[in-house]
């Protein structure tokens, strides 16, 4: 009797726990993405024409359309027979800036600031880091160090400025960060059209290649560079700040209840500026990872859509440092794999956006996944007598 009970408890634990639900969430998201791929697949459409004559053709076409794409995705993100685990290194590379910028976003979320300014912060970070990287010529070691520092400073300035304006004027950070993103975008556009930033002899807005001393050393035979170690260190640092530092305590206190924080002696204005500056610095690190890691040149598009992906990454990671880290890895895998999927099966890269966002939705809503799989514990209904409705007197 008791044994039975503990067994069912164990079953409950497994089915109700976050692990299984997350896996199932990913599964549902992939399934929906697969159906979308299949629905627009020409082979599927063709076989659908004679669906009733030979349904098996249709279903195998659907199956093939979906699975081929995902196998290609896996081959591009984790492992394939010709390259072994090299694709996984690629995943880590792509994840590096996502993690850094995601950490910045997460940190500001924890302080109650909805910072959507990572994009601008990455751009300014990359501009400063890039400039130091190609315009200055310094000894090995020192050069890279300065590249990193200037990148962090660039991001910190751009983020800190938002913090300052919010603290001093009360302007809403959502408005400010949106506007600062655009300003950064046009600023880099302008800079890339100046002599100082343009590659000599080039009319296109592209900077010189960064000095060899200014880029992250990379693992031979792959694109994975030392920036990934920086991402790990930053994750550790953010984890420490949030959990074990006084400033982290202040950030969280302000995030939850600024009034109480103020009464407890926390300088809310200063904290706002500090959080935004740190968040900016982290985003700046993403800019560094781009310019001194993967790209090695500065262009208008250096930030891609990183700043916006970073928000999703931070949210998927529930604004915790390690959550963000792993969410960054997951997104890195998708983005790295998507390229291979597109080449191998011709599936448009946009499908990855669909699957990514579905994953976040399903992981964020465990009850939905449980409902889909019928895992919800049956509601116990206490036996009560049947009273009449109040209205029906």
């Amino acid at each position: 009797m008791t044994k039975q009970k503990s067994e069912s408890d164990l079953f409950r634990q497994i089915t109700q726990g976050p692990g299984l639900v997350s896996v199932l969430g990913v599964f549902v998201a992939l399934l929906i993405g697969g159906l979308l791929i299949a629905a627009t697949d020409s082979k599927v459409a063709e076989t659908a024409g004679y669906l009733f004559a030979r349904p098996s053709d249709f279903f195998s076409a659907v199956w093939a359309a979906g699975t081929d794409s995902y196998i290609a995705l896996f081959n591009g993100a984790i492992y394939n027979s010709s390259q072994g685990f090299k694709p996984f290194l690629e995943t880590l590379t792509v994840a590096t800036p996502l993690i850094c910028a995601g950490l910045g976003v997460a940190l500001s979320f924890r302080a109650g600031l909805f910072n959507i300014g990572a994009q601008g912060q990455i751009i300014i970070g990359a501009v400063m880091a890039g400039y130091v990287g190609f315009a200055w010529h310094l000894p090995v070691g020192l050069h890279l160090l300065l590249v990193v520092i200037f990148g962090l400073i660039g991001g910190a300035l751009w983020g800190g400025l938002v913090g300052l304006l919010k603290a001093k004027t009360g302007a809403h950070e959502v408005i400010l960060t949106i506007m600062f993103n655009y300003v950064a975008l046009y600023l880099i556009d302008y800079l890339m059209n100046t002599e100082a930033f343009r590659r000599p002899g080039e009319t296109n807005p592209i900077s010189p290649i960064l000095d060899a001393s200014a880029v992250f050393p990379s693992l031979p035979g792959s694109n994975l560079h030392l920036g990934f170690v920086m991402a790990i260190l930053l994750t550790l640092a953010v984890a420490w700040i949030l959990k074990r530092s006084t400033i982290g305590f202040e950030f969280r206190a302000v995030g939850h209840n600024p009034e109480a924080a103020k009464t407890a002696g926390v300088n809310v204005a200063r904290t706002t500026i500090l959080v935004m500056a740190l968040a900016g610095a982290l985003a700046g690190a993403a800019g560094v990872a781009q310019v001194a890691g993967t790209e090695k040149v500065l262009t208008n598009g250096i930030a891609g859509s990183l700043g916006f992906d970073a928000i999703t990454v931070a949210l998927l990671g529930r604004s915790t440092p390690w959550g963000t880290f792993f969410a960054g890895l997951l997104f890195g895998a998708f983005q790295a794999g998507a390229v291979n999927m597109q080449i191998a099966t011709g599936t448009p890269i946009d499908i990855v956006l669909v699957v990514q966002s579905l994953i976040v939705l399903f992981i964020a809503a465990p009850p939905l996944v449980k409902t889909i799989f019928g895992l919800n514990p049956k509601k116990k209904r206490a036996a009560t007598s049947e009273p009449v409705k109040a209205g029906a007197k």
Partner: protein
Amino acid sequence: APEESGAKAENSDYIGCIVSDSGGFDDQSFNESSYRGLQNAKKDLGIQVRDAESKQNSDFARNLDGMMGANCNLTVTVGFLLADATADAAAKNPEKHFAIVDNQYKEPIKNVKPIIYDTAQAAYLAGYVAAATSKTGTVATFGGMKIPTVTIFMDGFADGVAKYNEDKGKDVKLLGWDKKKQDGTFTGDFEKQDKGKQVTKNFIAAGADVVMPVAGPVGKGAGAAIQEANKAGSDAMLVWVDSDGFLTAPDYKDIMLTSVIKTMDKAVEDVIAADVKGEFSADPYVGTLENTGVDIAPFHDFDSKVSEDTKKEVAALKEAIIKGDLKVESPASPKK
């Protein structure tokens, strides 16, 4: 599937590939025309093709890697942003061939063929025609973003207008581009078509009656604005770019004065055809009026509205440019 003819079947193990920049293959601009070139090659030569769109810069190298993995014989990359990645891939895969659209390397690379255009030459003719056909004495141009492949159109157009003014002693004004300062009106990206429409409306309000948008799909906004203005009594015209808009943007047939054509599709197909035959060379392909790599499109429905004199003058100018008697120069022109 239809039976493949013998000649084409011979090429069926040749793989031609293309990697876009972040504009994607539907940018109604150079990615799209280059892509069309590859598709034409597939049709005409019976080769296999692979394509990969890039969403962001960091995709370039990865996409090229993927193409190397897919054993592409020749890979076309589109745009200067891919220059470094292409050079890299070319160095790592010396036996493979590449072609890059709209980029010229300072040091030629032996397995990369640059496909570039002296677009200013054609735009010059369009500017001249525009100035000659304008009734209001004001013409306009705007760009998507301030990059050389865009501004080279605007430079040529500006010079063409200036030439007309000089020859005829007129004062046709050009709005939206100041060649000397190398600055003017831009919509900021290649996406916001409604912005392009609004820009064009402003041009029309400022008196322009010929507008040349150099902004990919945003150009459609210009077309829409002109059609709207004409309905309200204006008499404005559109100059399309990249391809003959009369054919590729038929919605605007009725306002299409002419187009400044860059035949990227043809160039891409030619490069592939040569490579299929084993005649690859890394010498840059420079599209000029002379080799009809760039040109202005026929006037189609506007043929009657362009005076015979103007047509003759344009023909003469074209002749002079081809001969080298007339130099059309832009900071963005291909370096010799």
